[in-house]
């Protein structure tokens, strides 16, 4: 048995999409979400959690509570069926599901309300640059009705490019309530990286994880906060013209100086950085590992 986590951690995760729709707005023609005031692309926290849940269930064989389940006759199962399948008769039994241990849940079993606050929470993700919204029209080869001789037209909105920044916290105190273990957190990191990469649906193909950073604290009850706003994107192109990760550089000077000034409170840093990403620290281009070492961090490259 793996131990319940004992330290706080902050997570920073960057991924990008090309010619796809990272998170459609169901009430706005499934358009990619855009903050109209700033032109920034938005991805909800629940989209990232869905990615994580699907990967943990489909690829890792973990028990996941919140997912679509069908009966043998092809029908989806109800909550009561699911609770029966999983032999869940008490709130504690829900904790057999990894997503409840990670993200918590508010649900009701036999009229009894159960609330677990998730130790792992993510903010809404945001692109690091203004994005371009593109309208694509296409045709299908299959007619919509039998008598028709032609296929129908399709309409969709995509983003030519978006580099998205997610920030999350793992809280060690809330972990006691849901019994979140170190092994669960390893699976979470695996799912963030590989779940994003393996989400090969029509609208998500082309998603690539670029940077995953986990700051492990040794100081009790402490975290820096706002890490996501400490990396800035530099490019010679106008924001809307960016089409590839090689066209941007990430300036990590502020992030590194904040990490460095909190050196005494940080135990170590787990990270994984994509090779195609360029980092700038104090005006000099460096690898991410070099930046972290310069900031005086103990580092551990994640094997994902």
């Amino acid at each position, binding site marked *: 048995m793996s131990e319940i986590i004992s330290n706080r951690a902050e997570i920073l995760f960057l991924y990008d999409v090309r010619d796809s729709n990272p998170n459609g707005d169901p009430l706005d023609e499934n358009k990619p979400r855009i903050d109209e005031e700033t032109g920034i692309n938005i991805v*909800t926290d629940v989209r990232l959690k869905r990615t994580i849940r699907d990967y943990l269930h489909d690829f890792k064989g973990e028990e996941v509570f919140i997912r679509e389940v069908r009966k043998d006759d092809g029908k989806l199962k109800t*909550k009561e069926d699911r609770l029966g399948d999983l032999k869940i008769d008490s709130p504690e039994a829900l904790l057999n599901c990894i997503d409840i241990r990670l993200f918590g849940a508010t649900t009701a079993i036999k009229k009894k309300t159960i609330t677990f606050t998730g130790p792992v929470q993510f903010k809404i993700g945001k692109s690091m640059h203004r994005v371009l919204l593109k309208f694509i029209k296409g045709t299908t080869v299959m007619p919509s009705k039998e008598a028709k001789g032609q296929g129908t037209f399709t309409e969709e909105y995509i983003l030519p490019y978006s580099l998205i920044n997610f920030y999350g916290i793992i809280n060690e105190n809330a972990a006691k309530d849901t019994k979140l273990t170190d092994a669960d957190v390893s699976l979470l990191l695996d799912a963030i990286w590989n779940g994003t990469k393996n989400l090969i649906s029509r609208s998500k193909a082309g998603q690539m994880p670029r940077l995953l950073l986990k700051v492990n604290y040794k100081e009790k009850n*402490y*975290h820096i906060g706002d890490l996501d706003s400490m990396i800035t994107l530099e490019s010679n192109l106008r924001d809307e013209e960016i089409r590839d990760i090689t066209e941007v550089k990430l300036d990590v000077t502020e992030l590194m100086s904040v990490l460095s000034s909190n050196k005494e409170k940080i135990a170590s840093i787990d990270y994984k950085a994509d090779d195609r990403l360029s980092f700038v620290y104090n005006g000099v281009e460096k690898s991410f590992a070099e930046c972290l070492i310069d900031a005086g961090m103990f580092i551990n490259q994640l094997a994902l």
Partner: protein
Amino acid sequence: MNKVLVFDVWGEYAHFRKYYTTTSPLSYSIPPRTAVTGFIGAILGLKKEEYLKHFTKKQAFITVGLLNPVKKVRISENLINTKDGYFIPFRKTGHQPRTQIRFEFIKDPKYRLYFYHTDDGLYARTKKLLANHKSIYTPYLGISEHIANFEFIGEMNIQKKILEDFVKVNSVIPEDPANKIEFEANMEYFSETMPIEMDFDRTVVEYRNIMFERNGQRIKAKLKEFWELDNGERILFM
């Protein structure tokens, strides 16, 4: 009461649900007193079943000032349709597997919170945690995806003042017939009815009209009484 803890909280979004909006969740413009008690409870690590008993109006003195203009946006989310007792996405005639909900969020919220507690131990613990930028649970603004950050401004001495003149007030102004507001040009005055205190079973026992200026400007008012801080800020508790 002769001192108060002052700290700023901010995030990218906030959502303080209005109690009467369940399916189209709207947000209060500022955190109601009840939301602030939850926020301080999270910093202190008090369980959600127990924190309310530490924050009755008799024990805890709380108010809020606006530091950023109130901007509201709507973000729609695809939720599981749990009507008819289905918790897992389930499609059949008359039941859609998912339901789309528009959430009203406050964008770029930043508030200054003022806090005093009659329990010296709890007050000292809050001060120590804030000063060291520590929190037991993850603090957030209304709902858990709106993770918040905070900064301790300091512990300030306060004095109760009774003045005949109009003064500018840094905090929101709870409605009181004895108070007079001087309405000025180019200001946007709003008032919202908010929960102030909840019973231990989360039944609201008091609502109050709270007035604020949308851009975070200080409202000029003639008040029955108010509190003045070391740094000249003037506040009224909610």
